[in-house]
């Protein structure tokens, strides 16, 4: 066993003088279906923590010394049950002072829930605010991301920009937490904004055939598809749509093609022109609060060191560590309550944007619209084509219809 306290709640670290570090627990989907999100860990987190620890750590008044930060990673196997279990282990065995939760509801929700149960502060990101909020009210967990309404509005703005006002929108949402959170927003707001809606219902994830959905889209004359799908489902849908002669002129997708690998596996014919919500990219202008590195710097370094293409998740691995450092710098001691209160008072700019939590423990980070574009060298990359409400993030291309 580790330094778990004897008190029932508050899994604070080892008591008093023995303190040699501050522990941050990070459950990560290293293996399993979400492993795409897990990629880049621990590289990004360690990148963030290195300058601090090189400097001896963070000064905590109670101990009157600098304490280095120790990151404890643990694999959730992309399974929410396992995520709960390993988070418990982090809390009671490792005695972490703080938890970082991110990467889809399957990680963010169980980790936040565990923090609530044990009274350990949680910095949560990268999971749409709506499903996270459903688990509240929270006492110990804080969350920063965007809302589905904001994505909706971004999409709507881009459709207008692309000259698609009032067209028929096909809804492609699964019956998983994300899909179920997204679909009602679209279903409700689209008609209000003057769009026609074709809704075939929430399909089960892992679906192997899409002909009924495609048939309905064809019948209803769908021109725009909006969805929030897991990548394999969306790729399979697009392939079959193409086989069955359904060709939307615009597609606005959440989650479905976040990663370069997903786009590549789908093939340039189908991926080119797809639009997605971009939460972080090399074009994001916010410098690191730790080193001043820009998004571009960080991502170039990543590609250089790992040989992998950039992904938006890197920023959301880096930013929570930034928040944690900022928070800890403001803590006089390491009592969970102290840390919690410090989180609540956060007001800073991270690589993913400004963070300031409201009374519901929520902060809103910016998103912009990206469009997958076939590059001259035959690879696919995302261009930023709409920066509605977040004009500090520069547009890098013009919005266009799918061929």
């Amino acid at each position, binding site marked *: *066993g*580790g330094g*778990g*306290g*004897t008190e*029932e*709640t508050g*899994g604070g670290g080892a008591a008093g003088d023995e303190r040699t570090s501050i522990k941050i627990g990070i459950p990560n989907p*290293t*293996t399993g279906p979400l492993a795409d999100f897990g990629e880049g860990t621990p590289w990004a987190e360690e990148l963030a923590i290195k300058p601090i620890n090189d400097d001896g750590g963070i000064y905590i008044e109670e101990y009157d010394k600098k304490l280095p930060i120790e990151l404890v*990673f*643990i*694999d959730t*196997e992309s*399974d*929410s*049950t396992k995520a*709960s*279990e*390993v988070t*418990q*282990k982090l809390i*009671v*065995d490792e005695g972490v002072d703080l938890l970082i939760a991110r990467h889809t*509801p*399957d990680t963010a*929700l*169980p980790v936040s*829930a*565990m923090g*609530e*149960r044990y*009274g350990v502060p949680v910095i949560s990101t990268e999971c749409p605010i709506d*499903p996270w909020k*459903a*688990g509240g009210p929270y*006492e110990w967990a804080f969350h920063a991301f965007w809302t589905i309404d904001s994505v909706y509005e971004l999409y709507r703005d881009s459709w207008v920009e692309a000259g698609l006002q009032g067209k028929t929108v096909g809804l492609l949402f*699964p*019956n*998983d*937490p*994300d*899909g*179920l*959170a997204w679909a009602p927003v679209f279903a409700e707001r689209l008609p209000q904004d003057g769009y026609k809606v074709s809704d075939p219902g*929430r399909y*089960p994830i892992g679906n192997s055939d899409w002909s009924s959905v495609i048939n309905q889209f064809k019948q209803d004359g769908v021109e725009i598809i909006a969805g929030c799908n897991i990548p394999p489902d969306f790729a399979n849908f697009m392939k079959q749509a193409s086989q069955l002669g359904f060709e939307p002129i615009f597609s606005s997708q959440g989650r479905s093609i976040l990663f370069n690998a997903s786009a590549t596996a789908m093939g340039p014919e189908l991926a080119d022109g797809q639009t997605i919500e971009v939460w972080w990219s090399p074009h994001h202008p916010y410098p690191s609060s730790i080193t001043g590195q820009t998004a571009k710097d960080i991502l170039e370094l990543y590609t250089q060191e790992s040989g992998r293409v950039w992904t938006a998740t890197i920023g959301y691995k880096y930013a929570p560590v930034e928040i944690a450092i900022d928070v800890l710098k403001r803590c006089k001691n390491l009592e969970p309550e102290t840390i919690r209160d410090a989180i609540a008072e956060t007001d800073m700019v991270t690589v993913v944007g400004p963070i300031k939590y409201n009374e519901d423990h929520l902060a809103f980070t910016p998103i912009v619209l990206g469009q997958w574009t076939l590059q001259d060298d035959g690879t696919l990359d995302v261009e930023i084509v709409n920066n509605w409400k977040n004009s500090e993030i520069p547009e890098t291309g013009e919005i266009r219809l799918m061929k």
Partner: protein
Amino acid sequence: MKTNLLSGRSTILKFIALIIVIVALFSVPSWGSQYTVMFFMLVCMYIGLGQMWNLLAGYAGLVSLGQQIYIGIGGYALAVLSNYYGVPLFLGLIIGGLVAMLISVGLSYLLLRMKGMYFAVATWITAEALIVIFAGWNYVGSGNGMFIKAVRGMPTSTIYYYSLVVAIITVIIVVFLLRSKLGLGLIAIRDNDSAAETSGVNIFKTKLYCMMISSFLTSVIGGLFYMSQVWVQPYAAFAINWTIAGMFIVVIGGIGTVSGPILGAIIYVFLNQYLSQFGGISMIILGIIAILVILFASKGILGTIQDKFGFEILSARRHSDRTFTGKPIEELEGSNL
């Protein structure tokens, strides 16, 4: 004759040892770290899960791949009852168990007509269907699942005590069941159902009781799991992984033995906790361990030890008289393959 652990003094010794173990277990929160408590809590839950799978597969010959049905029901019942109706958690566990039992009765009428792997697959598909149903059912939060808000801040030791009691109950129930007439009928059915039937055993009723007991307790364990995990979500609650865990525990420990699942649960929880630090390769190691154990001890660790030394802890075997002489004759020498 190697050992005779079953008669006279050794029975008393065993009884005393048992009491000591139980008392020791109850005292864990008073001396152990919070992690120790959590460790034993998980062990207790998995013992229960394993015992109940063993009751079905090891004794009744009902190899189920659908125990997750009851885990999920237990979790959801707790969530619904406590969130919507303010039912106390303890009561929620019991009501959840009863609901699961009712469901198992319904399912029995459909599924008990099937045998062998047909039954196994049918139970699994039922669970998969439940995922689809729960994921589309708004009342239970659909795909988003539900937070059991009442358990926030609940001390681990409380859940541990619940789990310990449940684990002990499962063990006691299995032992008593097997020593009862019902157990005799169960094993007879497992070995040859039509012969059992013509010997007067009501196959359906016997299996039904078994399913009912198993579903009730599995559901209570499901409730306990979700008490400690707070968030219940259909894809995880009705995932086959629950049954796989139960199966791992039983098969590694020793199928068809009462003590096997206890050892199996300890091994399982230990491996899970220990290996989680190895990230990517932890699952590979777990898989390899599962394979190796089965290859070298196909009856599980305790099952193999029992065979070797010819004794059984907590045996359900009936002896025609008090002196036990039936050392099992080894496998066919030079058997095929």
